[in-house]
């Protein structure tokens, strides 16, 4: 196992991106509110 891989228990690295509707989405903005399922897509377009 690569020790640098993301592992349970650690803080999820925060990021901010624009969604398909142009809204800024910051991962940490869900803190205290919602669990988040993060799905990294394969690239299928």
């Amino acid at each position, binding site marked *: 196992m*690569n020790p*640098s*891989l*993301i*592992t*349970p*228990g*650690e*803080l*999820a*690295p*925060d*990021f901010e*991106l*624009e*969604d*398909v509707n142009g809204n800024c*989405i910051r*991962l*940490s903005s*869900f*803190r*205290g*509110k*919602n*669990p*988040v*399922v*993060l*799905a*990294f*897509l*394969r*690239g*299928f*377009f």
Partner: protein
Amino acid sequence: MRDHYPEFAIRGAEIVAVGTDSVSSFQEYWKREKIPYIGLPDPEKNVPRLYKQEVNLFKLGRMPLNCVVDINGRIRYVHFGSSMADIPDNETFLHVIDQINASSN
């Protein structure tokens, strides 16, 4: 996950999908397939890099990577796909979310 979105929504969970395709392909796909959750195009690949999503050896694409983040912002579950089709089923995610919700009540 699209067809099961209500099961996530009812648990207060959000689904956030990050991909490296262009903004326009993302928008088209989201519209055409009526995807109800958040789609984040990242053609610069910064976030996949941050999360160390693996690239398929044959350059056919990226390997699937799925995480569940709890309400404290901590990784609760992580799954690095070992093949292009290796994505956990919805039950797995819902189970983790139920555990998060049970422990935060």
